[in-house]
């Protein structure tokens, strides 16, 4: 639990306790005079960045129970704020706490309005705290803090009056059904030895009458009185009250009981009567906080800072766990990789030992085999123009008038170009992508020839050429034959001219071109 600065303020002075490690570590008293205030400031100078919880024990306090219509949100805030202003005009230290709902039909909300009516009592102390820059978590009235005593001591009495001797007088706080109902601080000296029993009895009686007048409790009802006796000096009082008031249950919390049940060092009980309440305040601050927003602003920022730091720490922790997991996994993987590498090395060593018995070879067995197989495949893949030349020769036997002037051949992924004529030998003759897996090469031939003799009979010439092409196309390995050029271009898109004179002499030429493509992989 975080450190806290617990300050109990009364008309007599201030009690300052340091809450550290879930308990009060040390406690100091400062009187309500110039020296006390100076000492208080000096003490605060050594403290930084610790939230201050202020508890006030004063006669100038006010409690009101009031019923308001049930409302939500801003309506409720506005209504309660209005009520607070009506009740407490002269103090900024006030609050309202919804304690429950009415049992009536309207189910109205029941509120406890409380305030410190004399703000001057705490102003100097509070200003010193604010001036030091300590965040003020809240300002609480002592009776509100003492409610926690019931939970701590597990007191189940229906009507309970806690009576404690404080510096300023006797503090009497009444709880009904474990809920705060009333508290009063009597003025006066309670230390008169012989009158102490009477004094306590009178104040308890006065309180009962007051409760009766407020219709909080009738005089007939059973009441349990709990004397908080930090100095073990109220034994007689307890006995006296029990003797004089048979209708009362009077119990006493001795010094040792207080120390044991509240887990509080006995020596601290000697310092101040407020140590008990500061101890309770350290554990849990009550809901009724009198401090206005401008006072608690610093604490809100302090909480926001802590929340951000906590978020950062959580983030750092999560990142550390994540990173740690990654690093652990990485180390495991590396270790596994190391083991694998060692196994590989062992296998390689065994392999090398075996290969020493192999015949000396210039390269690996796989490469030997590959090189020989590739050489064989290359030799098998060699193609020459011979096949197409033989086809052309066979086809020419049926067409003696055809004379071949030029012949081109190519074995590649593309056909020989029509106007190729000469073979263009370049370094990049044909470069399919090296990675191409389904490259299909085929043989193609380009035949340029003429009809000789030619006497102007284009029809006969074209028929001869087509017959030549048909004979080539009938070869089983031929994939296609295309007449690229005929002696006469009969394309209607072009103009055509000539002479029809029938002459025994050769007139003009009847050139043609044929493209012959074999089936793939022939």
């Amino acid at each position, binding site marked *: 639990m975080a450190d806290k600065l617990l300050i109990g303020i009364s008309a007599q002075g201030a009690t300052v306790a340091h809450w550290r490690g879930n308990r009060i570590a040390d406690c100091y008293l400062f009187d309500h005079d110039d020296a006390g205030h100076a000492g208080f400031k000096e003490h605060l100078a050594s403290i930084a960045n610790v939230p201050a919880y202020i508890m006030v024990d004063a006669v100038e306090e006010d409690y009101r129970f009031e019923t308001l219509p049930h409302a939500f949100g801003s309506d409720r805030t506005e209504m309660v704020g209005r009520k607070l202003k009506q009740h407490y005009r002269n103090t900024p230290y006030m609050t309202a706490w919804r304690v429950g709902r009415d049992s009536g039909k309207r189910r109205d909300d029941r509120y406890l309005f409380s305030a410190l009516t004399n703000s001057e009592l705490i102003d100097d102390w509070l200003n010193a705290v604010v001036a030091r820059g300590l965040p003020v978590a809240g300002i609480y009235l002592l009776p509100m803090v003492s409610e926690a005593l019931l939970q701590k001591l597990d007191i189940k009495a229906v009507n309970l009056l806690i009576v404690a001797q404080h510096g300023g007088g006797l503090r009497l706080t009444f709880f009904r059904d474990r809920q705060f109902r009333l508290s009063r601080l009597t003025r006066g000296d309670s230390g008169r030895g012989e009158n102490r029993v009477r004094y306590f009895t009178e104040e308890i009686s006065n309180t009962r009458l007051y409760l009766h007048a407020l219709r909080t409790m009738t005089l007939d009802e059973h009441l349990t009185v709990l004397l908080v006796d930090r100095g073990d000096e109220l034994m007689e009082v307890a006995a006296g009250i029990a003797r004089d008031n048979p209708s009362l249950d009077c119990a006493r919390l001795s010094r040792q009981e207080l120390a044991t049940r509240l887990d509080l060092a006995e020596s601290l009980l000697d310092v101040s009567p407020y140590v008990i309440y500061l101890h309770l305040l350290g554990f849990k601050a009550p809901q009724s906080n009198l401090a206005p927003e401008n006072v608690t602003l610093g604490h809100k920022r302090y909480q926001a800072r802590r929340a951000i730091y906590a978020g950062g720490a959580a983030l750092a922790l999560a990142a550390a766990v994540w990173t740690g997991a990654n690093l652990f996994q990485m180390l495991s993987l590396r270790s*596994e990789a190391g083991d694998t590498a060692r196994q590989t090395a062992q296998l390689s060593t065994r392999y090398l030992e075996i290969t020493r018995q192999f015949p000396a070879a210039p390269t690996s*067995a796989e490469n030997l085999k590959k090189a020989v197989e590739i*050489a064989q495949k290359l030799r098998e893949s060699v193609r020459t123009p011979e096949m197409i030349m033989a086809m052309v020769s066979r086809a020419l036997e049926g067409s003696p008038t055809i004379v071949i002037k*030029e012949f081109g051949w190519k074995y590649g992924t593309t056909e020989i170009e029509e106007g190729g004529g000469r073979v263009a030998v370049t370094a990049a003759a044909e470069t399919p992508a090296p990675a191409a897996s389904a490259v299909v090469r085929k043989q193609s031939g380009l035949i340029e020839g003429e009809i000789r003799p030619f006497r102007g009979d284009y029809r006969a010439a074209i028929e001869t050429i087509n017959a030549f092409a048909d004979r080539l196309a009938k070869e089983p390995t031929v994939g296609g034959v295309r007449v690229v050029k005929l002696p006469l271009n009969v394309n209607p898109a072009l103009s055509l001219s000539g002479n029809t004179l029938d002459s025994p002499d050769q007139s003009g030429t009847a050139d043609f071109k044929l493209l012959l493509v074999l089936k793939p992989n022939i």
Partner: protein
Amino acid sequence: MTQADLQALKNPLLALLAVLLAAATAIYYSDQLMVSARRQLAQQQAQLKEARTRLQKSGDEKDIIVRYLDSFRQLQRAGFVGDEQRINWLDGLRLTNQQSDLFGVDYQIGSQKPYAYAAEFNPGQLELNQSVMRLRFRLLHEEDIMRFFNILARQGAGIFTVDQCSMRRIDTGGVIRFQPNVTAECELSWITARVGAAGERK
């Protein structure tokens, strides 16, 4: 939230930002280390598998070496395996020209390049290269060209493929005598194989 609130929370927010950055960096860096370690393990496992397979097949490997070593050495001598033997090619051309009674052969060899159809042969660790040779002949008859290729192949100067050829009849005016009747141009690819660095005997 007011400006004053922001000012009050400046340091924690900066600290949070720094933690955020540091956390992101740490997670990213450690993640990268882990990915790298995983990749390294995968590589090691692949190498182990390869080593195991190699060991298991070591018996077969010996058989392969015995079976293919002589043929491989012949290919080395022929100039197919190893560096290009251009002098051998030219000697082969010269001898082929003499033996096939041609009227001389003009040649032109291009620079060496990766073999265009290497993928067809799945060469593995071998690098297949080609040098294109352009030849120009004058022939008595068309069939001389086939005779030329057959004799060149028998010279053992290397392995070549014929890529393309063209022949053109020379107009001799009808005079019959021992003279060139056809001009021809051909393009050959001399193919060589080189054992890559990775394929050296381990």
